[in-house]
């Protein structure tokens, strides 16, 4: 019987191609989720930081001078 190397190559090649593509899809999705998670945690940290600044701006100053409301302050030149 002839060796039919073409059929052997097709069987092994198809298996390698399909498994390789599936593996790459998993890796890509994993990276996407990692990026999304990092972006979410950055946004949460920034929101927490902004909340702290807003909170401090409403507290009386340490020198005892009264503080104006942040909204009533004129913009800096």
């Amino acid at each position: 019987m002839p060796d039919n190397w073409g059929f052997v190559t097709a069987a092994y090649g198809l298996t390698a191609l399909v498994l390789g593509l599936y593996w790459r899809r998993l890796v890509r999705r994993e990276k996407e989720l990692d990026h999304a998670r990092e972006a979410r945690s950055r946004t949460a940290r920034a929101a927490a930081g902004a909340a702290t600044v807003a909170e401090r701006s409403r507290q009386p100053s340490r020198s005892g001078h009264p503080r104006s409301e942040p909204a009533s302050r004129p913009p800096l030149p």
Partner: protein
Amino acid sequence: MVRTLGWLSAAALALGLVMAFGVAPREVSQGNVQRIMYVHPPLAWVAYLAFGVVAAASIAYLVRRAPGADRLAHASAEVGVLFTGLAIATGSIWGKPTWGTWWTWDARLTSVAILFVMYLGYLLLRGTVEDRERAARYCAVLGIVAALDMPLVHFSVYWWRTLHQPPSLMKPGGFTGSAAILWPLLVNLAAFTVLYAYLVAKRVRLLRAEAEALA
């Protein structure tokens, strides 16, 4: 651990290739096309294993309602469908030069095709039902029912007259060929099993991350 499994499966697959092309001899009656045997039965074996895991995890989910069991069933079904599709394709490629046809509706091929379509339906069902808990419940039932086709697939070559040969390894009396053919086959069976474990572990981790992102 997942990374270790990945490297282990890469090394095992490389060894399997060396065994299939460097160690295993040229078969007398079929010639070198018989080397497809070192990839086709391992793919079919992993498909059996994957759907067995789906059935076990589905039972565990219905009993305990643990999301981890559902994720394992989902991941294993996806990998199982992939391996079954490849087993059908490589079998078809092997069939053309040896049987003279790409496909025939004999009992083994037909029962495997039914198994493939049932688990494809399982994956579609997951994507169709929006409520996650309900989808998990429906899929658990389907995962158990579909697994009932596996004994039919395995014993079809004994119960009906088929073009497909009887099993080489999983038969009463064990393997009867030479050790030069047996060892490459066993190494490839082990390599594909490790690859299955790696892909499932990776997919389970991904499903957990997706669930956390949605929560």
